[in-house]
């Protein structure tokens, strides 16, 4: 994705030893990066400008170079680094080529501005986090009462639980449930294909009206769950066979037993 046009400016031989050491250090450290945005933020520091004035094009090139070198060193990069590389290659082409008037999508500048915004926002959150941790902290810089509840004790037992307990309890119950139907339902389902196979084999012998219920497979009549499934599929199969003109159906009254027979030739 990022490799074809990169060949020219990525001439490995041309790079000074110091640059190479620096690049390798960056790559070896790839585990230390918290994702592509973090890596971009680190790369952007080499530009030594306000993040608002950063050259996204230059940044994209730096990133693509980084990914190429990682490849040359046969380093496995996580998928999201490669996704970012593909996107930056796309952005780079947008920034370099004159805009296509037929194109509806956002312009290269808009995309670049958004990336700059994302970097600035991430940096801002980093700074905010540092300021937060740099504050006076309870238990380090200021303190709560050392002896709470100083007075005579009236003992009363109350029960408590945390939100974590609650959610974990629920998860425990529900994950147990998730397996049950998956494991057990298979043998309680009589499929329509099975019912069709069974009936096709049997109708040849049924010259006269017989109750549909008698076509239920053996071993499926007693367990209510199994019976329900077998009844439904047998009924559906009988409709299918009637449609194909192989059998006839009749029912004496509402809710009366359904009867079938082979259609006389």
């Amino acid at each position, binding site marked *: 994705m990022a490799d074809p046009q990169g060949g020219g400016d990525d001439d490995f031989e041309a790079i000074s030893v110091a640059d190479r050491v620096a690049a390798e250090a960056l790559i070896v450290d790839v585990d230390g990066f918290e994702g592509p945005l973090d890596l971009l933020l680190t790369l952007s520091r080499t530009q030594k400008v306000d993040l608002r004035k950063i050259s996204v094009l230059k940044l994209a090139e730096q990133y693509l170079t980084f990914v190429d070198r990682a490849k040359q060193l046969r380093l496995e990069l996580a998928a999201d680094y490669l996704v970012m590389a593909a996107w930056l290659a796309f952005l780079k082409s947008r920034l370099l080529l004159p805009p296509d008037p037929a194109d509806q999508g956002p312009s290269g500048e808009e995309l670049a501005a958004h990336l700059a915004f994302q970097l600035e926002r991430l940096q801002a959150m980093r700074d905010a986090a540092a300021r937060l941790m740099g504050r006076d902290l309870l238990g380090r810089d200021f303190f709560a009462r*050392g*002896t709470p509840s100083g007075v005579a004790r009236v003992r009363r*037992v109350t029960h408590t639980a945390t939100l974590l307990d*609650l959610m974990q*309890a629920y998860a425990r*119950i*529900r994950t147990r449930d998730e397996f049950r139907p998956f*494991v057990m339902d298979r043998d309680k389902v009589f499929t329509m294909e099975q019912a069709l196979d069974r009936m096709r084999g049997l109708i040849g012998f049924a010259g006269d009206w017989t109750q549909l219920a008698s076509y239920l497979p053996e071993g499926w009549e007693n367990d209510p769950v199994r019976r329900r499934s077998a009844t439904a599929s047998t009924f559906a199969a009988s409709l299918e066979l009637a449609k194909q003109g192989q059998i006839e159906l009749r029912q004496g009254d509402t809710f009366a037993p359904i009867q079938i027979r082979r259609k006389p030739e």
Partner: protein
Amino acid sequence: MTDAPEPEESLFQAPPMGEQERMVEAILFATAEPVTVAELNARMPHGCDAAEALALLRKRYQGRGVQVCKVGDAWAIRTARDLGFLMRKETVETRKLSRAAIETLAIIAYHQPVTRAEIEEIRGVSVSRGTVDQLIELEWIRFGRRRMTPGRPVTYVVTQGFLDHFGLESARDLPGLKELRAAGLLENRPPPGAMADQGEDETAEDGQSDMFEDES
């Protein structure tokens, strides 16, 4: 510890007495055990006179809601005797809720309004009366509307007290299963097959012990 002779002349000037009083106040407040004058002196900057600062502090707290009291040969801040009646609430002992109770509570929270039969169906074991009673006593659940089905069973719902305790704005804000898993709050799925039986066994046992527990 530091009963060094009074330095004739200190290299560093000791903080003003007002500052020393503040220091004694902070130390007495934050320390779990009563503190001796020697300890105070050891903790305060060189040249301080803890005894004098303590005397000033003691005077300052005269007639206040808390007092600087002598405990043996050490000092502590204690609630004024006449206000002891306000402190009763601090001495509540808390225990973890039993697994049966927390599971029942979780089901009510996620499925409310829910009947006892439904709770039992979800948990896979019967719910003892004591468990429900305990949750009602904690004011975490209450009766909802009766279900308009045969038998008109009562339903259970969670209370405002429940939401307060668990820091929720509404029960609908509880994360779903997918979200629990995404947040890493769900233990890893045990391999299917090995799991189904084990889990059930465990719960059954639990439900039983719970039943006995509740009798007490």
